[in-house]
């Protein structure tokens, strides 16, 4: 499951908001003035260690970029017999990583995993209403963000497809009957 949540666009350390945004793949094409406009659209949220950011199954409206701290992602296994083993660890995300971007394009989309802060964490929240506002007020800027978002989602989909293919191949190998030893035949 890591391929879905691992950040493939990772950078490191905590920096100023402007720099954090500029380094994010979604906002890479924006000019300095547009980044300043974006600073006024995003939301800074603080989480304590072990505080949930969102839970699997909740309706999500946007994505988070880690400005400081550490976030762990879990998925819930409904078939698990007991509560303790129900949450399966998927990955750990660090500063500059981002997650939850699928909610920016889904209508009442549900979170597919649970995100929990693992230390004092600061997140930059960018939500669907913010994207809608940017598209209404600065369409060119909104389009650039939307194109980058499509790229990110495309990459995630490609990785997922590759992983699913790998798993199918592995499953096929497991199901295949063992090869017969023709020499042993009478």
């Amino acid at each position: 499951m890591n391929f879905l949540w691992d950040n493939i666009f990772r950078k490191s350390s905590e920096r100023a908001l402007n720099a954090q945004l500029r380094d994010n793949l979604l906002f890479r094409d924006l000019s300095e003035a547009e980044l300043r406009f974006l600073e006024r659209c995003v939301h800074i949220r603080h989480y304590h260690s072990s505080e949930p950011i969102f839970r699997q199954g909740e309706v999500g409206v946007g994505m988070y970029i880690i400005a400081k701290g550490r976030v762990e992602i879990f998925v819930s296994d409904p078939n698990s017999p007991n509560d303790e083993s129900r949450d399966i660890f998927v990955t750990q995300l660090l500063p500059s990583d981002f997650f939850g971007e699928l909610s920016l394009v889904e209508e009442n989309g549900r979170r597919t995993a649970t995100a929990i802060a693992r230390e004092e964490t600061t997140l930059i929240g960018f939500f669907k209403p913010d994207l809608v506002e940017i598209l209404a007020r600065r369409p060119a800027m909104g389009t650039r963000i939307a194109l980058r978002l499509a790229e990110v989602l495309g990459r995630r989909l490609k990785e997922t497809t590759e992983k699913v293919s790998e798993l199918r191949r592995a499953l096929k190998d497991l199901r295949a009957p063992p090869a017969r030893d023709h020499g042993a035949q009478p």
Partner: protein
Amino acid sequence: MNGGPTPHDISRDLLRRERRWRLIGFLAILISSATLIIAIKGLLVSTILGFVIAYLFSPIVDWLERRGLGRGLATVLPFALGGIVVGVGISIVLPMIVDQATNLVERLPHYQQELTSLVSSIEHKYRAYWKVGQINPSKELAEWIAIKTADVSAALPDAVSHSFTVLMLAPFFAFFMLQDGNAISRSLLSFVPNPLFEIALNLRHQINDQLGGFIRARFLEAAIVGLVVWIGLFSLDFPYTTILSIFAAATNLIPYLGPIIGAIPAILITLVSPEFAISEPGTNAATMLILVTSVYLIAQLIDVVFIIPLVVAKIVDLHPVTVVVMIIVGAEVGGILGMVVSIPVASAVKLTFNALYSHLTHFRD
């Protein structure tokens, strides 16, 4: 769970307590602001009007911003242009209104007398059917009109100065709502506890969107109704055309009852005016009554057939019974303004409840 607690983990109790305090802080800011607005005389009306102006101007401001203007200039321009339009409009329309109002005030005692004698003649004609002999409608009507006229005269100077303050403050509020509204609401949202943040943000967006659409649609509807009434009455060479069409447009903002209230003055004038007096021989009065009523009916027909289905119905989905109950509650609480704002407020409340219900049922299942 794979990731066990760290030495920095905050206890659940502490976290719950912090969230509770944040929520209390957020609600305290909301409630104290609302109390302040309600408590200070005129501030509520100015704030509501400010919101209305801001919602009416926001698509223009956004459009100008899309053309490359900064938010400040994009906000200043519509206000400057609006000021010029209002100024020119007042300089053209105000003399007409003053002229018609002066004429109306001069003739009011006459209309009053005519109306009383009309009721008296009806009363006399149907006296035989009156079961209770003690009731005297014409006398009661004359007394009621006298009391109401005295009330209006007494309240007029205060109302004029009050309206002036309200009209001066509303655009001022609207300007800052458009200029800094987002920053203010973002600051307010920062107080919302983490588990409620996304739902609060989404709710603000939905209410803003729905309320803005509703207000713009209602004003467009009122303007079209007013224009149709003006054209109709003007073509009939009816007196007080401007005042009556403005009144019809304004009362049209009240759902269901508004159009009826809006038509009453013109129908009453038709009934009591000597030019079209129904007691006069001939069918002139009756024809005029039919024509005047038709003007209002055509305006309503255009409203119901074209404007409501296209722009209003899609925005607010309230049951007609809810609408009527809300109008009555609005009238009790805030008079005419209460009737006008009751439906947008009811829509916002319904939206909030729906979102909270959805959060409690779907978000957490």
